[in-house]
């Protein structure tokens, strides 16, 4: 469970200081699917970075299961990213020189999983996203949707508690978008993990249990449950 209290995040730029997040409070329950919606530059990706322990807030605390991520060392944050948080990226971010299954294996490397078990788990994860027959293919040999499936397999192979997805369908056509959303929905239901999805697309946000809207660094929670079932 996440508890964000009084989060602000500022960046220095040539033009002065830019405040990306301003006094954000947020509670995310275990097993919840939360969509964070907003326009480009609204601060939603910055919020995702703080939730993922990839950055620290300027002020406030990001509490994950009783641990304030803002107060942890880089080593501890790395450990949390390696074990408890899975990431799905808009641009898939697969290692172009590794095959699909090797890309998935890469997520298990920090866990020091033995090679045979690592390959076995990666193969299972690839199969779980419907790409068993593409396991040995390079990312360049896969379609956008298939690459995102590999990205999802990579995020899930370590069985994380939280799945953070940054515009996971942003680079996909509508049909593929729906396929990926269905896959995420299925995973969320099956694995019982917390799914936090950043999107600018209302159609995507509508699939979530709850939607938070970012606007100029401020967060508002939509009052109604818009989840489609």
């Amino acid at each position, binding site marked *: 469970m996440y508890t964000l209290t009084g989060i602000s995040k500022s960046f220095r730029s040539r033009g002065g200081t830019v405040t990306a997040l301003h006094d954000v409070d947020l509670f995310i329950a275990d097993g919840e699917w939360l969509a964070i919606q907003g326009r480009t530059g609204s*601060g*939603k990706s910055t919020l995702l970075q703080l939730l993922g322990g990839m950055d620290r807030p300027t002020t406030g605390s990001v509490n994950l299961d009783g641990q304030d991520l803002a107060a942890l060392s880089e080593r501890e944050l*790395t450990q949390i*990213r390696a074990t408890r948080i899975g*990431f799905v990226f808009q641009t898939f971010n697969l290692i172009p*020189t590794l095959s699909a299954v*090797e890309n998935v294996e*890469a997520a298990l490397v920090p866990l020091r999983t033995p090679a045979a078990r690592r390959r076995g788990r990666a193969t299972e994860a690839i199969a779980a996203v419907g790409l068993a027959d593409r396991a040995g293919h390079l990312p360049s040999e896969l379609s956008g949707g298939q690459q995102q499936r590999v990205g999802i397999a990579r995020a899930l192979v*370590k069985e994380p508690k939280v799945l953070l997805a940054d515009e996971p369908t942003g680079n996909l056509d509508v049909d593929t978008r729906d396929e990926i959303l269905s896959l995420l929905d299925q995973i969320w239901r099956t694995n019982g993990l917390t799914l936090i999805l950043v999107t600018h697309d209302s159609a995507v946000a509508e699939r979530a249990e709850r939607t938070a809207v970012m606007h100029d660094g401020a967060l508002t929670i939509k009052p109604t449950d818009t989840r489609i079932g």
Partner: protein
Amino acid sequence: MFALTYLRHELRHRARQATLVIVGLAIGVGLVFTTTATSTAVSNAQSTVLHTLDRIGADLTVTARTPSDGSRTSAPAAGDGSGTSLSVDGGAVLDSSAVDAVARLAHVSGVADSLVLTEISPPPAGSGAIPTSTRIDGIDVTRPGLGPYAAATLRSGRSLSRSDAHADVAVVDSRYATAHHLGTGSMVTVDEFRLKVVEIVDQTAGSGAASIYLPLAIAQRLPAGPSSSTLAGKVSTIYVSASTAADIGTVEKELAALLPSATLTSSRDLADAVSGSLDSATTLAHELGTWLTVGVLLATVATAVLLTLASVGRRTRELGTLKAIGWTSHRVIAQVMAESGAVGLVGAALGVAVGYAGISLVNATAPSLTATVDRGPGAGGGSSSLAVHLTARADPSTLAAAILLAIGAALAAGALAAWRTSRLRPAHALGDLE
């Protein structure tokens, strides 16, 4: 091991860039390898030449300075009436007492003296040939170990010993012996002296070697002085060795003070007196070789660094992603360094092959070099020339240095890339920050 799989894939998929770095390293290493081996070969050749020409075990050679008025210690040889003349090589002599004085100097470990004479024999009447000269060296058998005779190799017979100090015996150079049909036990005539040949020696041409060696006391009885006087109590050359290499300068100063009218010649002077194509090659190897090596080294390192940095720059998102999914900075840096190290290893291996090829090329195509040493008045005057074949060899230290160079250059590039990698934040995986 996943790191090796990743490494292998990276190098294979970025083959063009890796090849560029590898080729750059290989050329750099190969050139350094070849240049160093060639430079060493030239230095060795020069050392060989110096050893051959005048490497007689002495650090310094003392000779009497030739009189400035041109008067020389020479006279027609008496006795055979053939017109043969004897003269002191260099035309001047020192008193034997100088030898003992030199031996008493604090930093002197060895001294030898000799009286070098030149016998000029006119050609047979009407032959049209030029006169022949024979170098005759009267050596002090009580002070062995220095001088051309000490550098000669026994071919047959026995070496001269202290007991031969006043004996009518001679040692003959093997080429002279062949030309004059001499062998051990034969008799050789020098002026009116008939000397028994007790030893035939092999000597390197141009080493300042004499055709005939005889005891100093016998040489001093030869009529080679002014007005056919003998040279009793005179020597022409004193060979001096210093206690240590560091003492040579001190000994040189002491000798200059002790014998102000004598000429001193050191090994350094001899090296300075080497001319000819070998000298040019030495200069070329040292000057051009050094700059070439430095230039290639810098270019190699710069190329490796730039290409590796460019590669890491292109992989910002990839490396950021690895950090985002839980790879530690150390693991990511190790991966980048391992890639650089692997490129360095391959570059080193290829560079060694290029180096060996370069050395073979040098050995196959290098022209025969000649070295000419102007012996100067201090070494008896005149000049000696030798043909030298350049033989470049790869020695283990050069090999190790070349390999370390390639790996070092690659790791230096990797270290810079790693430094850049260490500054990457996992947030780079998400692209531009909002």
